[in-house]
């Protein structure tokens, strides 16, 4: 609480309270002290201050999705695979029932094997997709993956996997911008010439 000049501090009690409030406010603004706050306290205080806690994140996800697509569109695509839809992708199946799905994408001079598994949101973790690839080909450029909604063909997101011929990534719902356990998706691989900044 700020005390304005229109509220003179006449008594010692008022000065005491003002001093303590100012000190408390300074501690509130200290980033290191604030980082100690449990996230539940952070969110309830945000709400009390008038912030729309979930609304902020929904808007941010939309902004990020647009930015990623713009960013991705700036690179030249050297090769692109057809879309592959893993079995049960986005369908309601118990977490323990989804086996690892695998697919090989053929190129003119080799192949790229892709495998994935996904899990719905749990108490401890957000929904996520675990992706791994192994390229048996000369890969001159960056490997990207593009997620597409199969019915509308809308690009859900496009992510850089890297320049390694082999690797894996753990993609949370936040990174993907969609829930891999609840929304239908297909995946395509792309090789792009490295992005020129």
């Amino acid at each position, binding site marked *: 609480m700020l005390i304005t000049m229109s509220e003179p*501090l006449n008594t010692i009690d008022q*000065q005491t309270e003002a001093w303590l409030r100012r*000190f408390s406010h300074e501690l509130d603004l200290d980033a290191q*002290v604030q980082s100690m706050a449990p996230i539940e306290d952070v969110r309830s205080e945000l709400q009390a201050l008038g912030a729309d806690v979930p609304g902020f994140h929904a808007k941010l996800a939309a902004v990020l999705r647009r930015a990623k697509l713009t960013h991705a569109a700036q690179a030249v695509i050297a090769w692109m695979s057809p879309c592959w839809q893993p079995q049960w992708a986005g369908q309601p199946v118990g977490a323990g029932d989804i086996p690892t799905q695998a697919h090989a994408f053929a190129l003119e001079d080799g192949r790229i094997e892709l495998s994935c598994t996904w899990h719905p949101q749990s108490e401890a973790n957000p929904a996520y997709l*675990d992706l791994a690839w192994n390229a048996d080909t000369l890969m001159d450029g960056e490997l990207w993956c593009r997620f597409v909604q199969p019915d509308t063909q809308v690009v859900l997101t496009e992510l850089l996997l890297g320049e390694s011929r082999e690797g894996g990534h753990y993609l949370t719902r936040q990174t993907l911008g969609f829930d891999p356990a609840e929304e239908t998706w297909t995946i395509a691989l792309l090789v792009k010439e490295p992005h020129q900044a």
Partner: protein
Amino acid sequence: MKDNVEHGLDIVSAVANLSAEDYDGLRLRLWRQFGQELHRIPDAPTPDDLLHEAIEDLLGDRRHCPLARVDLTMCLVNIVRSKVSHVYDKWRQTGIVIVSDEVLEKIRVGDAEDSELRDSILAQVRDDSLLSKVIEYRLEHPEARAQEIAEALGLGLQAMYNANRRLKARLKSVVAK
């Protein structure tokens, strides 16, 4: 397993890689720092609005953050601070509402040099020994920041956070009375 889709220092990845918890912590910092100031200005954006603008500016290359040297959250705080200052200046210039500086100025609480005020402050927290030590140190070192106080008293920052929670609870009960 770590969520490390993109290792490059590009800004899109950096913005995407901050967690929801990181963003909410940053937002609380901005609401605490600028919320009241903006609330006084008619039709002013909220700290969340300005944070969104800051993020869009970074993503759209209208602002830059040297990620190799500066923490992204620090960059965002600085951009929002600059935007708050701009909003405030613009509002002053339009003259839509004239409010004297006095109203916007935070109170200058007198330095607690006089012993009566000092004793009164300490009396308020007498029954909380850790909080008393924190406040006593601060009274003796008016420029001391939280980190310095914690180190001097051999406390962790968690203890400082908890002490402030207890102080806030006390202040709340004062208002309730």
